[in-house]
């Protein structure tokens, strides 16, 4: 499978701060880029997703920025809250077969 590289592996942010997680992909056939949030003991839940025809998508406090030429995309969490503490996975898809990044463990300190 083509790789999706995610960074950082872990992130500590103060409450109210901005959390930024980055991903890079290799396969130019990917046409769907979702971000998943996973709490301990739970399955991943879709947070927000983007397709390569737009460069940015915002939903509430969550924004995806997409750079097609650089084959990179990132998740920004504005006004981070302790309830956002979880593991975040980026993924890329070409035909509903998701390729996941390695995950970022986010801790938001009160």
């Amino acid at each position, binding site marked *: 499978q083509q790789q999706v590289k995610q960074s950082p592996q872990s992130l500590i942010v103060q409450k109210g701060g901005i959390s930024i997680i980055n991903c890079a992909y290799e396969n130019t056939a990917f046409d769907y880029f979702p971000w998943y949030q996973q709490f301990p003991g739970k*399955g991943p839940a879709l947070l927000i997703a983007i397709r390569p025809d737009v460069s940015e998508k915002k939903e509430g406090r969550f924004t995806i920025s997409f750079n097609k030429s650089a084959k990179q995309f990132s998740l920004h969490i504005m006004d981070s809250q302790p309830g956002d503490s979880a593991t975040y996975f980026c993924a890329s898809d070409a035909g*509903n077969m998701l390729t996941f990044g390695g995950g970022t463990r986010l801790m938001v300190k009160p």
Partner: protein
Amino acid sequence: DAGVTQSPTHLIKTRGQQVTLRCSPKSGHDTVSWYQQALGQGPQFIFQYYEEEERQRGNFPDRFSGHQFPNYSSELNVNALLLGDSALYLCASSLGLSTLTGELFFGEGSRLTVL
């Protein structure tokens, strides 16, 4: 509306044994995919079932097999278990084969420990 349900939630097996994991998709969904998530890593795609046939397969050996039933539920079978098969096995369901028709919904997984 029930989401994706998986059973069992936890199980322990020994090397060489066989295991069957079960999944019921979200109501209205007809496609089931299986993923393996090792501790501290991202999920890895195993295979996808649609219309009772395996449609796509990731880089997993033939020891991993599956089935989809007419009611869209699915089973994952792993034969000749290895220690490295210890992981969280996630089932995901969707409507249709493409993300164009809808997002993937994940269950909470079956935690398999191989001793």
